[in-house]
């Protein structure tokens, strides 16, 4: 294990250079982690999907509503255990910049359909009783310092008019993959208002959420549901919740591709920086390698020395970068509006990627110096000055 000692000693021979290289690699790895976290955040909805839920929406676009009358027909399809629905309300709360999901849902059944939103039974009961009650995700409640009994005035945009909701419950997410920022209120409350003010828009829901008994039958049940409404005014498209969420991700497909591309560019920069250092280092030590070879050390030892030094630097830089990404992601997550990316965490996969990149970069950066050191003749090496 003396070779390890030699590697460490070599790294500290040029403290400034090694420190700078490690710093450069650490910074790049940290930003790599941040970028990947942003990409992951986009997929949060897909990750949080349950495999026993289907979403039925208007076949053309989910922005078109479906008739309320579909609900009973869907409930009768074999394999369906529960049907609930939701409508995207949004509206303006305080001002345009406060973005978190605001949805009108079927108060009686919604929380049965989404067991991962945990609500205290007494809060749920209070919510169901009051027409203009709402339930908030705990993150939104925290961000806006709202508690039970507070009034939230919302100015509707899709459904114009001034609305006031009273907070009657706060839901906790079952685990960290679940969105804790939503505001949910009674669909009946919105519909009643619509019936008075814009009657031709009443009686419609945004999309149906269907809980099924056997996840394996998802495709079959989806087709059965769509067949019920084929050739009607509002044809439906039913798919698993994961597929539905994925379609949102695909909307920004080009942007995500661009971000992935940039994360590879970052790796490229890390590689260049480390390669630069290793080339310089190896060039200075050609004479030493020649001496080692004369003494009888083999190519394997030389390769080990160079690659070892390269890996040592890159892994150290990688470790520091990974360590720094935690506070960085935390700081960013705290400063973006909670509704943009409801889930913004470093995933274990990202850490693995960062570590692997540091490893691969360490190896690749050593390739050229290794080739040069091993292919030179001892005599030429000894002749080198400086």
């Amino acid at each position, binding site marked *: 294990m003396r070779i390890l000692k030699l590697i460490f000693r070599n790294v500290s021979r040029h403290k*400034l*250079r090694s420190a*700078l*290289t490690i*710093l*450069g*690699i650490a*910074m*790049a790895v*940290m*930003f*790599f982690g*941040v*970028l990947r976290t*942003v990409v992951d955040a986009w997929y949060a909805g897909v990750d949080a999907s349950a495999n026993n839920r289907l979403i039925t929406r208007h*076949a*053309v*676009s989910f*922005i*078109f509503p479906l008739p309320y009358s579909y609900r009973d027909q869907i409930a009768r399809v074999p394999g369906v255990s529960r049907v609930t629905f939701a409508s995207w309300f949004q509206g303006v709360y305080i001002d345009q910049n406060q973005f978190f999901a605001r949805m009108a849902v079927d108060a009686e059944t919604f929380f049965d359909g989404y067991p991962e939103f945990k609500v205290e039974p007494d809060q749920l009961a209070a919510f169901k009783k009051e027409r203009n009650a709402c339930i908030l995700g705990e993150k939104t409640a925290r961000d806006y310092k709202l508690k039970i009994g507070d009034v939230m005035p919302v*100015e*509707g*945009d*899709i459904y*114009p008019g001034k609305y006031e909701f009273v907070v009657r419950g706060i839901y906790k997410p079952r685990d960290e993959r679940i969105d804790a920022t939503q505001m949910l209120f009674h669909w009946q409350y919105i519909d009643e208002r619509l019936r008075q003010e814009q009657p*031709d828009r009443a009686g419609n829901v945004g999309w149906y959420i269907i809980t099924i008994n056997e996840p394996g039958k998802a495709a079959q049940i989806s087709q059965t549901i769509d067949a019920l409404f084929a050739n009607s*005014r509002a044809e439906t498209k039913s798919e698993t919740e994961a597929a539905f969420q994925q*379609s949102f991700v*695909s*909307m*920004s*497909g*080009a*942007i995500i591709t*661009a*971000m992935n591309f*940039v994360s590879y*560019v*970052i790796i*490229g*920069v*890390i590689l*260049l*920086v480390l*390669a*630069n*250092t290793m*080339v*310089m280092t190896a060039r200075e030590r050609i004479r030493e390698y020649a001496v080692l070879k004369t003494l009888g050390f083999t190519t394997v030892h030389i390769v080990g020395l160079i690659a070892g030094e390269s890996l040592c630097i890159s892994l150290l830089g990688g470790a520091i970068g990974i360590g720094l990404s935690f506070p960085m992601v935390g700081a960013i997550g705290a400063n973006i509006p909670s509704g943009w990316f409801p889930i913004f965490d470093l995933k274990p996969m990202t850490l693995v990627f960062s570590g692997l990149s540091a490893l691969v970069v360490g190896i690749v950066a050593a390739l050229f110096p290794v080739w040069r050191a091993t292919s030179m003749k001892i005599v030429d090496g000894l002749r080198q000055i*400086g």
Partner: protein
Amino acid sequence: MRIPLTYSIRNMFTRKLTAALTVLGIALVVFVFSAVLMLAYGIEKTLVATGSDDNVLMIRKGSENELSSGIERDLANTIRALPQIAVGADGKPVLSTEVVVIINLQKISTNDMGNVTVRGVTPQAFQLRPSVHLSGGRMFASGSREVIVGSNISKRFRGAQIGQTMKFGGDVWTIVGTFDANGTGFESEVWGDVDQLMQAFNRLSAFSSITLKLKDKNEFDALKTSMEADNRLQTIRIEREKEYYERQSRFMAIFIRVLGIFITVGFSIGAIVGAVITMYAAVANRTVEIGTLRALGFQRSNVLVTFLLESIFLSLAGWGVGLILASGLQFFTISTVNWGTFAELAFSFSLSPEIVVLSLIFSLVMGIVGGFFPAVRAARLNILTALRAA
């Protein structure tokens, strides 16, 4: 007495590999930085160019865009009578009542479904949008289930060629023509007869928006005052067409800029580190030279400037390579969903003089920051110890 510039420039070529690696690192950073700015600018350009100076767009108050807006028919008739509206050659006001909906089409490249904007227009729409002109086929006949498609749609989506049919709104529509719109957002739309589309989508009572041309672009305030004076028109939101489209792209452009610049500045630290290491090595390898220069009479400040210049030349080279790579991006068009309107929008990377200057400043900063400390070290070398270092 200054050290000649050629000394700095030629020294870059003594250690070609190292210099190349450093230049490449800076080039990558400049490339990403410029690409991000070009993307955001491209989005803005496409959308803002979509509006004309003397056009005004009206939607319902409280709506953010045409999609979520509804203006009743009788209100439209009231608006038609306003005096500030330009009058066309046929004596009719240049005003188009339009309906905007979204349909699903399958993309050719990824097989995913994409949302496409369908706009129901009146004949005045073409007067209002001079950038739109037919590029193939013919105009749709009014009163028929015919449509024309923007060039981006026919390029990117299946079943969007002349002669093919599209199924939406419970009926089948025939594509009879394609149109170009000078790279503006309209190229990503499908246009048809407004009355036919309203009927098909079951919204006979309300238009999505009204676009009109002012007699003179300075009449905007007069128009606003006339509308505010009329009680019936209180529910209408009025803004210049350019502002409306700028607002649609604002969120996305800001997101891309903020994220992009943040990440780029972050990993530019990596490239700067590369430059620092290179320059320190350059100083270390030329200690004797530096001693000689000082012995010859050059001042410490001359040495400092020389090494700083060398670093700057490296970063300028990186800037050149990065910018050339970035300008190559202009040949690509990207299609994504505009978060404001939920419909597909195609735009390309656009280079502007501003972006060129910004990236130049950025790389100069990288060069100066990277080269500063090594240059200081070179300047502070003691002549005697430097000459003795062998």
